């Protein structure tokens, strides 16, 4: 009942682990998958190892957390070894980033054979050196990156966008036009800032960090709702999903699948199983026979 297809990949349910959460090792990805996720997305990696920012990299705020981990990763060479250790049944998307279309394409082609999907992180709100949102806030750059990756690989490509732009629709259309097979909406919000009152210092070493958690849900939902009207490709909704109610809201708004991240802080990986059970109960109660029947129905009223 919960099975879906996203970009022709079959998933046992529409929940996915969001990039950047517990996604650094095959071991943790395997665990999350066994805990009920329909698919997992790796932590973003690129061509070279990156140690990220100094701590503090995460701090709690009202309604969620802000973080600036700084895209820490061991580089594609090492990450390939992790990917080899994934259980064969795990459906996995590699989240990759880079400073140029060429770097994106190069990293993509290196891992293509080892994953089911690629997710392009053009939207990290606190990345250094032209990576991250510097790309995803520019429709043309986004187009170039997607285009380059699509040329270099044959597996489906998902583009993850930032909400921190004046015109999200323009960028979503641009990614779709470049051949992106799906969109993930949204990367973390803001960014935000938290100041310690005793010292008057920003708590994060990077000062500002992307916001995630329940409070960003209304905004993520609006992004999905509006982009759904503008593009034909499927949308994966992410932002503040903590339970199956939230999942239903995203499906109704137009998401074909969802990702869960910050909720793991509260409930652990078992959240995926809880959501799947809740969603199935909801569908039975409301008479939905497949997830697809729920997608975008808020637009049909």
């Amino acid at each position, binding site marked *: 009942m919960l099975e879906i297809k996203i970009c022709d990949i079959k998933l046992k349910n529409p929940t996915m682990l969001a990039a*950047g959460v517990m996604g650094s090792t095959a*071991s*943790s990805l395997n665990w999350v998958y066994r805990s009920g996720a329909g698919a997992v997305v790796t932590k973003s990696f690129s061509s070279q190892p990156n140690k990220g920012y*100094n701590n*503090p990299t995460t701090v709690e705020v009202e309604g969620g*957390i802000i973080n600036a981990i700084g895209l820490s990763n061991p*580089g594609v060479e090492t990450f390939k070894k992790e990917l080899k250790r994934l259980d064969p049944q795990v459906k996995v998307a590699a989240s990759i980033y880079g400073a140029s279309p060429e770097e994106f394409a190069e990293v993509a082609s290196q891992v293509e054979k080892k994953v089911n999907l690629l997710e392009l992180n053009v939207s990290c709100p606190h990345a250094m050196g032209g990576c991250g949102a510097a790309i995803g806030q520019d429709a043309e750059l986004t187009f170039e990156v997607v285009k380059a990756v699509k040329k270099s690989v044959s597996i489906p490509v998902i583009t993850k966008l930032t909400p921190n732009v004046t015109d999200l629709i323009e960028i979503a259309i641009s990614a779709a036009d470049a051949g992106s097979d799906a969109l993930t909406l949204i990367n973390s919000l803001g960014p935000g800032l938290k100041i310690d009152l005793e010292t008057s210092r920003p*708590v994060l*070493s990077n000062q500002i960090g992307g916001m995630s958690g329940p409070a960003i849900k209304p905004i993520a939902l609006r992004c999905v709702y509006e982009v759904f009207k503008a593009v034909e490709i499927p949308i994966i909704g992410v932002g503040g999903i903590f339970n199956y109610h939230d999942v239903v809201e995203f499906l109704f708004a137009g998401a074909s699948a969802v990702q869960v991240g910050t909720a793991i*802080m509260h409930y652990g990986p078992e959240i995926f199983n809880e959501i799947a059970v809740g969603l199935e109960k909801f569908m039975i109660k409301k008479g939905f026979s497949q997830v697809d029947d729920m997608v975008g129905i808020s637009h049909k009223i």
Partner: protein
Amino acid sequence: MKHVPNVMEIKKIIKESESVKTFIFDWKVENKYDYPLPGQFMMIWNFEDEKPMSISLIDPLKEELGISIKKIGKFSSQVHSLKEGDKLGIRGPYGKGFDLKGSKILAVGGGIGMAPVATMVDHARDRGVSVDVISASLTSNELLFIERMKNAGANVLSCTDDGTCGFKGFATDRVKQLLENQKYDLIISCGPELMMKGILELAEEHHIPAQFSMERWMKCAMGLCGQCCVDDTGWRVCVEGPVFWGHEIKMITEFGKYHRDSSGTAKPF
């Protein structure tokens, strides 16, 4: 909010050994069930970086909490330069602590690994549990908490690599010797992973349940970032750990073999 550093004055600094200082903070907790447990850790922010540190003292009467830090690098050197009245950010407690089971335990701490072990010794003695504790270090002036644990009524057995105090040799050798004559309900341990690996083997050999406190690079400490996940279970040391039972440690294939740096690259011990 839990996951926000609480910037506090250092109430007291105790020089524990040549390289270790304990930093004491006022620690008022309204509900006694919110009190930290031995084996839990705090994230300490020195305004340049933030690192996980084991709780080395829990005093609910004086309402004090202590963190012991060994001077080994940039972060710890900066913290060692601080004076009483200076400030540090502190958030936590985090993770799963030691689980006190049985009426006679053996506690084994190696180096700065004595921090959570001493906390657990206090905890066990408060509850009338009989404790033999091995405090191990390279040399005598690095031995930690000897007097404190004696005052708590523990049977303290010093152990130095160079034999400058107590048993000469490794902690594992001392444990081996002890287990030939003594029965214990439980072994708890914290220290270098190779030491703990040896103790786990001995514990299994003698069929004694054991708990071990692990250390991994931490970033968020709230179970999100995945930095501290271990192979092959994927467990987060900050949530499912840092204390694991022996049977859990057996599933942690990287235990005693490697750990990951800030980029996630595996580094052998």
